[in-house]
């Protein structure tokens, strides 16, 4: 009897650990949310550049990054953390955004507490094979040059990974 109850509780523990559903009132780190979302929803190429935006970021900050992306001719994917999907879809620039992934802020925050989520746009590369994100970059609005240098570096990384 003891061993069967141990087995049931162990099985329950494994199932709950494998599940993507967060428990109530758990703090969830931004990195974890990004990885889990991309593992579940991204089906594109390896080592692609992503821009994270959300509806608590200022409009000027997002515009500035679009201008930077456009100026450097970058091809980019976008991941948006918004209350309403329509606000996200309407904010995606159609000319240079390859793929867009939506995270429903409203549904997410019903289940868990966002922990240290960025309040300004963030760039990163997602390695699909390793299911990992790297080259995370927080652009500074007053220092566009550092963003351009970052893009140069990213272009090299993506070219090397493709060759």
């Amino acid at each position, binding site marked *: 009897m003891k061993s069967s109850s141990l087995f049931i509780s162990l099985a329950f523990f494994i199932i709950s650990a494998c599940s993507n559903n967060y428990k109530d009132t758990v703090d969830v780190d931004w990195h974890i949310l990004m990885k889990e979302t991309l593992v579940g929803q991204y089906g594109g190429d390896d080592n692609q550049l992503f821009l994270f935006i959300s509806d608590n970021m200022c409009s000027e900050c997002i515009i500035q990054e679009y201008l930077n992306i456009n100026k450097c001719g970058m091809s980019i994917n976008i991941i948006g953390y918004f209350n309403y999907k*329509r606000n996200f879809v309407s904010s995606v620039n159609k000319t240079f955004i390859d793929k867009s992934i939506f995270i429903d802020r409203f549904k997410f925050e019903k289940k868990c507490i966002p922990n240290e989520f960025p309040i300004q746009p963030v760039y990163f590369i997602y390695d699909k094979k390793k299911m990992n994100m790297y080259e995370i970059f927080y652009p500074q609005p007053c220092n566009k040059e550092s963003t351009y240098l970052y893009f140069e570096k990213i272009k090299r990384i993506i070219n090397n990974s493709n060759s």
Partner: protein
Amino acid sequence: MKHFIFVIFCTAFVLSSCNRNDKNQLERIVVDGTERVKFSNLFSDVSIIVPQTNDSSMFGLEIRRLEMHRGRLYLLNEMQSGKNVLCFNNKGDFLYSIDKYGSGPGEYTYFGDFFIDRKKNCLIIIGDNNKWFYFDMDGKYLYSDKDPENKIRYYTNEFNDSLFLSYVGCSENNFNNIHLVNRFNRNTTYSMNSGPLHKLYTPRLPLCHSNGIAYYYCGNDTIYDISSQLGEIKPVFYFDFGRKQKEFKSKFVQFADEDKMSLLVKEFKENGLRMTVYYIANDDYFTICYIENSPGVELAIFNNVFYDIKSKKSYNSKNIDFDIFNINTRLDIYMLGCFDGYFYAVVKNKFSNEEINAIKNCKFLNETTRNRLMQFDDMSNSIMLKFR
């Protein structure tokens, strides 16, 4: 001599009574009228437009305002990532958008406002570095030019054949100045130093025009006529928001400038202070929208007051039955402008499936609109109203 003194006395009396601008002389419009009325009794000519939705025509956070020209609707769409212009025909079919953020030719890094120059038949976007970007009426970029006055304009609209109406706010010194700019580079500056909310709050569209009169309104209750090209500002009427608002105004003027903003926020959040958002008029109605914060409600509420010029009665949207939609829900409408006597508004409600089914059966729909409502969902653009 006696006659002479009497004549001078009479003249002085007449002049002084003509110059009195206090509120007792102004037309008073009651905001909190309690009379219940059906929308269809106020406005008999109503059309419902459902703007087509696709990835390029999707409304963002808010539609700020509308221009109407040769049967087409031009909407100023504000998104999380800036602004664009969406163009639809009068059936709601999407035609094109102007979305040119960038640093190449014909591109801007800042979008202030747009207006239509009906004489030149072109659309002008007020961009960065006081530049105006000209587009033809099919959305094709033509050229860019410096602002005639080299000023940053927060809001510009065509007033009549020869005048633009602009709201300029480029520095602390002329924060509340208005420029009436005519096409021959003659302009008049109005210094808006009156009103308790001066330098603190400005409505999104502080200017409007109707029946050949240009109006200015700041965040409080008074509407000013600024049609004179001599820089004269004449208060013409005021919206009576009630006793609490009057008490706030008298308390407000006693505060030091640096404390006024925190007082304003506190009074708005906690004590029901009402702020004017826009004022729009046609031949029959003055309409004002005000925003108020109700305790326990997360979002502030927009209310519209329609003032019937002939009967001098006012109707608050709190007491209007929007019978035109066949539903009992109160409509949350946001006025976008007035053209050819018609008011245009966007309906901000999120409708349930049952409500959409009821709206489908209302009599103000044409076939295109009804078909579009068949596919209506969360991602669809908001319904628009055209009425007079």
